[in-house]
């Protein structure tokens, strides 16, 4: 009885917190199918908001900018960052610690300060192009996340593999490509995913470092007073949730399978 009561209360509490976290977005999504312009006044079902969404060039442009900047910046950051991690890992302790500390700066720095510092640099060197500015800014703040998700994998893997590959006649480049990279692949992939999602989500750094070319966050900020097309929330929410659920469910299932496997192995013994 006490147990059931406990379960009831804990379930209610978790449920309420989930409502708190999801209600605003879900209400916006529901509202995106509503004919009326005002919330809380249901006048009929419509796809008008969605039609309008794809007919608003500012939104489609911002969508393209967001996705392309996220894709390019995360890939560049992953390549640069993985190579950097491999290089850092092979360095002398003192050099490595110095560089690792500087690398942490964008993670420690408030986004506001990172954004402003980049803005100052772009103004100083006279870089005007808004898209290039966004790309550089996003690559810069993505890099440390890639480096620090690859470095632990490098520490787990053995240096012997690399040396063995060299002994067997690989050039350093081949050894990296054929031996080291496959070994640290999980770190690279999680770095890439993290970089991609961070880039999709960024507002503050883009807002200060950018110049005239808006990503979705900047668009929402600029139009918040007039009102943002609620269909946008569906466009952003549904893919992100689906992607995250797929990734996480897969890892949960793998974990469970591994658990079952280890139990089976235990039984055999």
């Amino acid at each position, binding site marked *: 009885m006490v147990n059931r009561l406990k379960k009831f209360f804990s379930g209610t509490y978790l449920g309420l917190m989930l409502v708190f976290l999801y209600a605003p977005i879900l209400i916006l999504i529901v509202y995106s199918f509503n004919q009326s312009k005002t919330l809380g006044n249901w006048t009929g079902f419509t796809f008008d908001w969605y039609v309008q969404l794809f007919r608003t060039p500012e939104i489609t442009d911002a969508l393209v900018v967001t996705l392309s900047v996220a894709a390019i910046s995360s890939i560049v950051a992953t390549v640069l960052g993985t190579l950097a991690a491999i290089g850092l890992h092979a360095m002398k302790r003192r050099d490595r610690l110095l560089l690792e500390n500087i690398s942490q700066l964008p993670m420690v720095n408030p986004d506001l300060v990172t954004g402003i510092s980049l*803005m100052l*640099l772009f103004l100083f060197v006279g870089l005007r192009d808004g898209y290039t500015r966004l790309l550089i800014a996003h690559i810069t703040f993505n890099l440390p996340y890639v480096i620090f998700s690859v470095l632990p994998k490098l520490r787990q893997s053995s240096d012997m593999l690399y040396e063995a590959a060299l002994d067997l006649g690989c050039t350093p480049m081949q050894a990296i490509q054929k031996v080291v990279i496959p070994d640290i692949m999980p770190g690279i992939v999680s770095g890439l995913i993290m970089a991609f999602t961070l880039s999709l989500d960024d507002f503050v750094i883009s807002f200060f470092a950018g110049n005239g070319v808006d990503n979705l966050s900047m668009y929402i900020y600029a139009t918040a007073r007039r009102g943002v097309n609620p269909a946008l929330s569906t466009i952003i929410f549904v893919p992100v949730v689906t992607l995250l659920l797929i990734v996480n469910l897969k890892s949960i299932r793998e974990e469970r399978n591994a658990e079952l496997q280890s139990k089976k192995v235990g039984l055999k013994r």
Partner: protein
Amino acid sequence: MKQTKSIKEKLAKGMRIRRSVFAYPYVLWMAVFILAPMLLILYYAFTNDGGITVENIVQAASWDNLKVLIDSVRFALYTTILCLLLGYPVAYLLSQMKKTSAALLSVFFIVPMWMNFLLRTYAWKVLLSAFTKILYTESAVLLGMVYNFLPFMILPIYTTLIKLDKSYIEAAADLGANPAKTFLKVVFPLSMPGIISGVTMVFIPSTTTFAISQLLGGGKTMLYGDLIYMKFITEQSWSTGSALSIILLAFVLISMTFMKKAERTTSDEGGGRLW
């Protein structure tokens, strides 16, 4: 024999140095896009018409600006406390569940972290203006901040709690402690490292938040981030803006060292206090 070995060693050493070459493109990137911009902020903060000066810092540390910083810290503190009060039970209840259902449910608590933060804040703006009268008040800003930072409190506490060795809890029960006492004397102290990293992940970003106060406070609540924005963009006063950024950075670094220290002492004591 010895000689060949040393040649081989030298070669291997040579290869080692060669491998660090892979970091060079990044080091160059870092120098240009991380270090140089920070040096620019320092330059603007500490120079005036080409001469070195602390005047900008002194000016930026005016009472009016410090009041804004204090206000931001107050907001960040409220946010942190509310996130802890709301988030700790979530993390605790999740950690008490069966492993697979907890893993699934915890995903739902973390997903909002990955959703466009501006859109989520905007959603609250729409909701508050349609159903309540608190839009453009301090409560609205606070609500938006708690909403945005809550997952960052839940996640680290949850990860600490699931790693917690269950035999401590069993031992406490065996020694006659009731569940409440077990929680207070065993579980809570042992989850301290998670609490501290949650507090760090909420307090520091919420001190420097920008945009939440503008969207939900309607410009009535001025936080430190808004002040820096105003100096740079509206007033185009780069030296004052840079000086304000330096003050913020100093504040963040000090709070972080403080938290790190707290983390170290609790993780030491957490083990020690048990015995």
